[in-house]
């Protein structure tokens, strides 16, 4: 079973991102579970969403405490130390960050595989959201597909079309662009 935690700010689409991963993985034939951090969400405040993927039906119905991977939609959560994003993260896990910087800038986070992609830039180039609030959740999932190999870009595209009501084509194009733009720095000894 793979457990993923997604960090973002209220309004950035962390919950939708968890749903899209679930939809895409479902199309890969996996059993899926996706849920938000339960509670009342406020725009701008740090939020989290979770995904479980497995070949067997997912029985565990608790929150996720020791994820296998992280997706960080907003680098400021790390840079401004707003959230301890690596809390409970398994050694050797991967972290995918939306940032203009390269992965080497984030090695201080620990013994993890770091991947980065400038999803905000890609989103804006595809006219998704505004300069102050780019909608990055679809583009970063392209990078997620490349990084983890868990979902194909075709299934990601279908999942986006099924989940995102507005501009599905632009969202899919952004995801494909991000899939090619991701830069990965493997943790020592992980082979990636």
């Amino acid at each position, binding site marked *: 079973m793979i457990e993923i935690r997604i960090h973002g700010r209220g309004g950035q689409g962390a919950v939708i991102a*968890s*749903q899209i991963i*679930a*939809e895409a993985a*479902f199309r890969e034939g996996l*059993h*899926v*579970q*996706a*849920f*938000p951090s*339960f*509670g*009342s969400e406020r725009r701008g405040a740090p939020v989290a969403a979770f995904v479980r993927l497995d070949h067997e039906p*997912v*029985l*565990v*119905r*608790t*929150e996720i*405490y020791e994820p296998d991977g992280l997706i960080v939609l907003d680098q400021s959560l790390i840079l401004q130390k707003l959230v301890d994003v690596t809390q409970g993260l398994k050694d050797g896990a991967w972290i995918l960050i939306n940032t203009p910087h390269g992965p080497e800038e984030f090695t201080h986070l620990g013994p993890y595989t770091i991947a980065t992609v400038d999803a905000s830039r890609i989103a804006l180039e595809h006219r998704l959201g505004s300069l102050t609030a780019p909608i990055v959740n679809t583009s970063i999932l392209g990078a997620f597909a490349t990084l983890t190999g868990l979902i194909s870009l075709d299934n990601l595209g279908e999942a986006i079309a099924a989940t995102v009501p507005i501009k599905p084509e632009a969202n899919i194009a952004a995801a494909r662009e991000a899939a090619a733009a991701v830069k990965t720095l493997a943790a020592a000894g992980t082979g990636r």
Partner: protein
Amino acid sequence: MRMVIKGNGAVAHAVRLARPQVISAYPITPQTSIIEGIASMVAEGKIDARFIKVESEHSALAGCIAAESAGARTFTATSAQGLALMHEVIHWAAGARLPIVLANVNRAMAPGWSIWTDQTDSLSQRDTGWMQVYCQSAQEVVDSVIQAYKVSERVLLPTMVILDAFFLSHTYEDVEVPEPGLVDGFLPPLDLPQKMDLEHPAALGNLVFPDRYMEFRRKMDLAHQVALGVWDEVGREWGELTGRPYGLVEQYRMDDAELVLVTAATTASTARVVIDALRDEGVAAGLLRLRVFRPFPADLIRTILADRKKVVILDRNCSFGHHGIFHQEIKSALYELPAGQQPEMHGVIAGLGGRDVTVEDLRGMLMGVWEGRITKPVTWWNVLEAKGAETGAVAMG
């Protein structure tokens, strides 16, 4: 058709398949997306029903009662404070023997204000005459709503289908949603034997004197007893149609289990992971999941739990001043066992107000009982210790 939907979406799809004629509901977190989903389906013509917008939950159920009295299949959904506000007409619906189906999203009662899961809201309606089914997955939600209509309409009792807030209501998962044709074959249109009929005027709900009231109550109680068999039969029939059979309770690795966890809802799903781990470690652990809580399958549970060594009953609820409610019910069901067959029973109250009950929590309470570290009849799990319990300071401070 398989699809990724959340628990609340599962309710909406099941309601669509059950073809109700009247839906009357009022929004409340975390139930709201159920009726939003249904309202959209009605608006899009996917459900051929009248959707009545009301100003309160009391009116929502009153609307269902009126429509059902005229012979219409109805649905409503609510949660916590909304369910409590319905209370007066909840009794009415059962007493009038109307097979209404209601989805309740388990949410803690205020204060303190909480939107997270807790079973006290639905268990507070235990004695109203409604049937109650606790679900562990979105799949079971779909299946149970459809079964609930069939059982309810067979025995003329209303059913509450219950799902945990967020852990189920807001969690997306892959679910098999049956085809309409399959459900139509399983669930015939409602034909109430006794309903409002303009050609044959009658008074409904009229005054009943002491010389007759008890007979009506006796019939209600008998209907509950009949319902035990009907739930069993309908769960099996559904299994033949879909490959997903259901019983009054669910047993997991119970054959030779000496340590048994009894619980309901999503926690029971998580518990299976713990049971598997304990088995791997050589502990003969098993799970008894409560599903149909009213009518209460006391005889079945007594048979299942006879001769077990230790039983841990996990309640996500509390009857203040006494035990957890499942705990009380299990103990009372087992009273008739001879002393030699009585297991040692421990109640655990955990997860109130949405506090997570993790794999580690479940392992802790099971092993605590198994290894004799937990000896008290009732343990509040993972809660701040009370230093002044004996002086009363804790209660008054």
